[in-house]
């Protein structure tokens, strides 16, 4: 059971599948950041 939980998409090594999870996660953060700040002007524009 423990090994089933640690396996994702047929990949056993958490060092590898966690890279997939983090990559997708950060891409989602990019999308959310862009959408939330779509019309927001920055402080550096005076």
């Amino acid at each position, binding site marked *: 059971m423990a090994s089933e939980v640690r396996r994702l*998409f*047929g*990949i*056993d*090594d958490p*060092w*590898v599948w966690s*890279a*997939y999870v*983090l*990559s*997708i996660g*950060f*891409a*989602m*953060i*990019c*999308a959310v*950041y*862009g*959408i939330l*700040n*779509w*019309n*927001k*002007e*920055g*402080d*550096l*524009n*005076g």
Partner: protein
Amino acid sequence: MVDTLTFVIVALVYVALTIGLGYLGWKRTASSDDFMVAGRNVHPVIIALSYGATFLSTSAIVGFGGVSAQLGIGTLWLVMMNILVGILVAFILFGKRTRALGMKLKAVTFSDLMAKAYRSRFMQVATAVVILVGMPLYTAAILIGGARFIEGTLDINYDLALLSFAAIVALYVILGGLIAVMYTDALQGGIMFIGMFILLAFTMYLLGGVTPAFEKLTSMADMVPAGLSSAGMTGWTSFPILGSPLWFTFVTTFILSVGIGVLAQPQLVVRFMTAKDDRSLNRAVAVGGIFVLVITGAAYTVGGLTNVYFHEKYGMIATEYVGNIDKIIPTFVNESMPDLFVIVFLLALLAAAMSTLSSLLHTMGTAAGYDLWRAIKDRGKPYDPSDNKNIPKSFRASQIGTVLMIVVSVVVAYQLPGDIIARATAMFMGLCCAAFLPAFAHCLYSKRPNEMAAKASLVVGTVTWFLWTAFVHIKESSARGLCQWLFGRPSLLDSPWTVVDPVIIALPMSILTLVVVIFVWRSKVVIDTVPENNEMVSMGKG
């Protein structure tokens, strides 16, 4: 081999579109500001696609896809770094300040930005020289990647493929400047996105779905070649053994050097200076993150899975069947995909190569024709950051510089060995990181950027990087032969130092130098990094 007539028709449409966009760029290029920073008024989607398409080239698709085929999909950590550092950190922490500072100082190139921020001609010349020495290596690697695929797919002579490829890109860069480069980048980025998405989906379909494909790859762990196994490789879906030579190469070269190196690449920094406002950069983040995920995620995943395909078809792993790792992805696509998709992928690859190549040519051209030319022209005079009268004259000089650098890059391309694409990319990014990153970050975040600290950091970072490359990092030190000739051994140090990437040593040295000199040498330059109402830079003696 794809049907040549079909490909020629599709390629002609693509080339016509590229030339059309190049023409549009040429029509809209009325000033040097247009030629160098695209008039500072570029649409956010074009910024994102141009940044992504410039960032990710044949190096990412063919080079690192091949590395994944050889060493496994632990390279996905580089995808994570590309999104976290290459998009989130780059746009939010560096991009906005670069845009504001670039606009305030009226900087038109990366070297110009560094020079004006530090009021130092040395910074302009030194950054231009590092660009002109280091960038042809990267440019040559991209030329090789594009030409190899054209050669393999169309069965044409390699020399013809390389030269015609370089000529087409040079033409629209020279005529249309950065506007043409960014417009064509956006078209090429769109093609790359579609091509790589289809490649990933079709590969998964071919191998029976996501989980079965990875399960098959996991079960091939016992087929790892003995040489790689003794270096620490444990399989294609598992990370190398902690502390092994392969682990060091993976972590220091592929993940850290390339992952962090993106922050200080001159051809990418200029993209931030083309944005009209911060809103454009915020919107570009949304597009950029997804773009990078699809392009690199697909390339590295498919790279690893080519082992399953070649094993099922020929009973061999990818490197065994193909040989040169730079040819693994092209061979896989040519052998496994329907003709129509091969054409789409060929276009995606051409687009990837052309978009990066055009940006590198533009960066080298302006470094030679604007930064160096200006320094030579003004030699003997004190540096005046507000003197922009030479900018219009440098338009033609930049065009000549572009022609010169394409010739240099083609010559370098003929000197490089095989299996070089990923390595050359990592080397260039590492050099930029060690030489520029600390000084670049310092001028963005300090109100009192220290000129002496920036100079020392740039020199120490660059020299350390070159020394480590020539005398310690075994891949280069043994290949160049200088260390053997001078000291009678291939590397001055023993393992694990021989596999530690130069940037891991050179970047901390560069940072340390910057910090130490800041504390011992008080800056006399005060720069207000927060612009107000588009006024000119306010600089004074502190």
